[in-house]
Each structure stands twice: as C-alpha cells, then as structure tokens.
C-alpha cells in the first residue's frame, strides 16, 4: 500500500476568548479543533461533514498552515509542516491549495479576473506573460467562464461566478491536494454539477487529492471515497462513503442523514430533529459531547468520553453503544 499523502495527528486549535472584564486575562478558549487524526491517501477524496461551527474550516486552515495549531502534527509527503522553515513551507504550500467557503471575501476587488487567476503564477515566477495569459484563458474555459471575463472585475460577477474564479485560482499551480471548503455551496445546481464533474475529471487526469468540506450530503456521497463526520472539534465517525451512508453507527451521523432535504414536494420524510441548540464549544458537555441531544443517551454518556472504536470494514466511530470489532 502506498504512503499517505497527508498524515494529521492529534491536531488541536484552541482560540483564546476575550475576558468580559477589561485588563483581566481570560483563561477560557474555544476548542475549535480538539484532537483530530486522519490520513489522506494520494488520489482519494476525503469528505468532511458536520454541523456549523464544529471546526471544519479551522481544520482546513490548519492543514494548509494558514493558522498554526495549538498542538499536533500535519505531515505532507512525510514531512511535518509545523515548524518547517518559511522558505521551504512556501514551496511546499504550492502543492496544497485551498478553495474557500466565502466567494465574496476571497477576491481582491481591485484586480481583474485575469490578474487574479494569474497572480499565483506571477508570485512564483512561472512562465512568461504570454504563457500566463494562455493559462488564464484555458482556466476560464475549464471553470465555465468566457474569455471576455478576464478583463472584468470581481464586483461585476454574481456569487456563483466568483466561486468559479476561486477554483481557477486554486488550479493554476497544478497542486497535489486541494482543500475545498464548501466549494459548490454557493453555486446553482447546474453549475454545481459542472464544477463537480470538473473536479472529478481533474482528479482522474492529474491524480489530485481532495479534502472536500460540504454540508450537502448528496454532494459528499457522490464526490468522496471516505467521509469524516465531525462534531464539536472531534471526528466522531469515519469510513468509506458506502459504510457511512448505508451503515451509519453514530447517532449524530444518523440524524445528519435524516436531515437531507426532500427530493420532491410529495416526500414525507421521517426526520430525527435534534434537541436544543448546538452545544457550547467553550464549555463542551461532559462525557460524550453529543449526549445532551442524543436520542439514545445512557447514564455512562454524560460521564465518560467514548473513544473511537474500529467497527470493521475500515469504519471507526465513537459512541458507547458500539462494541469493538
């Protein structure tokens, strides 16, 4: 078996929060990512799903080293990115690109679309002006925009069109791995299908690896080889997409799957509507973080943290209902 492209171990990010009392240092923090470990194999797509605020974007930004972790390691091709010297990190990060969740905030409004897409090439001094221009036009086509768009500015584009520009930018340096943080959430269905077809085609052609964050479980099922389900900073279940969809183990995953929107106005879906609001990441619940909302809660759940167990078929989950395979 080949080596993992990316190896993440016990990754944590705690954001300190300001004390409400001025000049008094707060010792509280938001445990945005709280001990996450996973491997990503070359050419595979790992899906990451989970509730809003559970730490998916923070995890993505840690992997890409846009922010540094409180502890833990991120190995890319066997080398730890944490503490790597700046020059080498810059070179390595060419191979790890990111497409952000927010298509509005991520494009400099003063640059034309052509300049924006060419920017990574200019920064890394790749090719001459003519070849850069050719590449820009090529990418515009790939992402479903037209050549005349190169001369326009981001504000002239709708949300969906802007996300296509972001995808073109991420592709321009021919990366090994692209972390896609909700890349198609802002796109209309038909364009979403084009972009997903495109991402899959590119993956086959260049053996690209993806970490694919999305809250659309239909998209994730279609895109991903394996899926990690996060809850309040931790991975609570991980397995192949077939295992997760056909044989979910964790009660949270079950609730998630039941919340997939209707496929027709005539559908009468049985929903597991979860109790209460999402828990507070500053003071996470004791025991299993999910216990307050779990329909299957037992006494042990509020006192003891369940560990990730191997339930067979490369499927792991953390719930007191489960037994080791």
């Amino acid at each position, binding site marked *: 078996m080949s080596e993992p492209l990316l190896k993440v171990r016990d990754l944590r990010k705690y954001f300190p929060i300001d004390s409400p009392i001025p000049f008094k240092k707060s010792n509280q923090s938001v445990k945005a990512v709280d001990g996450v470990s996973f491997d990503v194999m070359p050419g595979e797509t790992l899906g990451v799903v989970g509730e809003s605020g559970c730490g998916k974007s923070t995890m993505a930004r840690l992997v890409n080293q846009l922010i540094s972790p409180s502890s833990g390691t991120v190995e890319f091709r066997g080398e730890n990115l944490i503490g790597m010297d700046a020059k080498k990190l810059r070179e390595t990060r060419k191979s790890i690109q990111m497409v952000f969740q927010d298509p509005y905030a991520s494009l400099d409004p003063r640059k034309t679309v052509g300049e924006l897409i060419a920017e990574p090439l200019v920064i890394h001094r790749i090719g001459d002006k003519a070849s850069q221009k050719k590449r820009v036009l090529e990418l515009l086509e790939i992402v479903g925009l037209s050549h005349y768009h190169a001369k326009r500015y981001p504000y002239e584009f709708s949300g969906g069109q802007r996300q296509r520009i972001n995808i073109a930018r991420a592709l321009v340096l021919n990366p090994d791995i692209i972390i896609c943080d909700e890349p198609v959430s802002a796109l209309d269905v038909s364009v979403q299908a084009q972009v997903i077809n495109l991402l899959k085609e590119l993956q086959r052609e260049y053996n690209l690896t993806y970490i694919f964050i999305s809250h659309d479980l239909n998209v994730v099922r279609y895109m991903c080889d394996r899926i990690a389900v996060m809850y309040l900073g931790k991975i609570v279940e991980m397995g192949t997409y077939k295992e997760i969809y056909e044989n979910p183990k964790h009660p949270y995953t079950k609730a998630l799957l039941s919340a997939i*929107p209707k496929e027709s106005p005539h559908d009468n879906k049985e929903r597991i509507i979860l109790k209460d609001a999402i828990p507070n990441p500053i003071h996470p619940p004791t025991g299993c973080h999910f216990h307050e909302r779990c329909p299957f809660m037992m006494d042990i759940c509020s006192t003891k943290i369940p560990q990730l167990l191997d339930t067979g078929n490369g499927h792991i989950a953390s719930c007191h209902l489960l037994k080791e395979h």
Partner: protein
Amino acid sequence: MSNELLKVENLEVQFKSGSTVTKAVNGVSFTLNRKENIGIVGESGSGKSVTATSLLRLIPTPPGNISGGKILFEGKDLLTLSDKEMRDIRGNDISMIFQDPLTSLNPVFSVGDQIMESIKLHQKVSKKEAKQKAIQMLQLVGIPAPEKRLNMYPHEFSGGMRQRVMIAIALSCNPKLLIADEPTTALDVTVQAQILELMKKLQDEFNTSIIMITHDLGVVWEICHKVLVMYAGNVIEYGTVEEIHDQPMHPYTWGLLDSQITESVEDHEMLTTIPGSPPDLRQEIKGCPFAPRCSYARDICFSKAPEMVEVKEKHFVACHFQTKETRLNRKERSTHVRAVVKS
C-alpha cells in the same frame, strides 16, 4: 384585508457603466399571498438577488436603476414612496436576509450591538429590553451561550453562525414579508432543517410570507408553495411546486432538475449539466435567452422572444413550443458513464 400581499409587475432593473447597460432583470412578474411562500431558483447571475434587493429598493444607484414596473405591497406601489416611507417599510413590514453574511455584518461592532441596534431602530424599547430580546433571538436561531456570544465580533463566528445572526436580526421585527437570499446555503443540514422548521413556525405565528431564493431545490420542495424559475433576467417558468416538480415544461427547468444530485445518481455516472454559459446581459438578446444552450431550439427561437403563456391553470411557461396547443416532448436524461465519456 386582501389576501394578496405583494404583486410585482414587469419589474426591470438595469446597471449602467459607461455606455454599456446590463439588463439584470427584464420584466419579472409574480404575486404572493399572505402566508404563502415563493421560491426563486435559477442559474447564478440570472437576477435573483437583484430582483430581491429591488423589492426593498436597495439597489446601489448608480450604477443600478429600477427602470420599469410596479412593486405593489399591500396595494401601495413601493416605487412611488419617499425615502422615509421606504425606510419605515424596511425592517418593519419587509425584512431581508442577505446572501452574504460576512459583508452584511459590520466587522467593527460586536454581534450583540448590531442586533440590539436593529431592534432599537424599529421598536420602542429600553437598552435592557433590547438586550433581553437579542439574547432571546440568538437562542431562537440556535446560537449556544448567547449571553457570552453577544460580546463577540463577526470574525469569531463560523459562517453558519453569522448567517443565523442575520436571521435573528431579520426576524426580530416580526415582518409581514421576509426575503431570504440563500439563507441556509452556509448551513449544515441539521441546522438547515431547524431553520426551515423555525421559518414555518414563525409563519404560523405571524402570518409571514417568505420569498426564498435558493439553488437547493430540496429547500423549495420543503417550504415553498410556488416557484419562479429565472434565466438571464427573465422568468421562464412559474407555477406551484407540485406542477414544477411533476410536470416541468421549460427546457431550462428540465436541465435544472436533471443536474441535481439525488439518491438515485450513481457515483460512476457523469452528472448531467447544461452545456454552455448564460448570455452576456450587456448585449441585446433577440430571441429566447436560453436558445444558444437549448437542445430543442429551432430558427424561431433565435429571432423571436417567446411570451409567457399560461399553459395550464396557474402554470406559466415562456417557450415557443409549450403553448396551450402544442407540447414539447422531454428527452430522456442521458446517463453517461464516466469512463465512456472520457474516451
């Protein structure tokens, strides 16, 4: 009290830059009854957000300009109101959840201040009451530990939490009409299910009508009664959700429904897409705006714009071949297998 809350007639919105004019919205009409929800779907750039922001007269002018039509809200044409009268309507009778939660929250003020500001703007309450109400609203939309979060700034919230703050602000005045532009796009499905549940509850309680802009047809099936399908600034199909789901008629709507990823789509299949891209709205469009991408198009489609026809009761379509007399036969959805497509 008339049952009709909103009637939009032939709305036209243009953007001017130098000598070019972008026809972003080109004759949109629909009606919305009290307690009724309408979904607006359509390709990116088709004019959904511009339509919605025009209803509140919040189009940046210049370059934007509402160049024609009527927006009758409870019988009054909003386009004839003074700025002051319009301000009273915004946030009291009509409120809007904008597509972009990051830029609609001010980064330099705490989230709590912004909610309280909006409450105090529209309701005569003390600071303390406003704070209580803000906490209550945050709780309602499912923000944990609202008392603590009140002092936090927008960048400290996740995308979904910011969106829920926007929803809290929009709901804090119990509007008659709520315009929600992609309100659940940034949310995960369990929260989406909760928010849609919340919107339904609010609707029962306050008789609110909702205009729901979304690209997720699942959301439309979930809470809307009617759907407006837009393409290149035009409404191309309009009807009840049952009609549009069961008997869609416009070739663009067919493409839209076919490109959804549903449970029945296998992962080795290519997704169906609509080839090509939408027209440049700065250019004059002569025929049917969908013609260049339509696999059913014939000569007439490129020279004459089809009119909106009521082909069945309360089901309107703008296609030359979908009329009371004629019907177009929908082609089978092509399910390519990936490996085959590649060669």
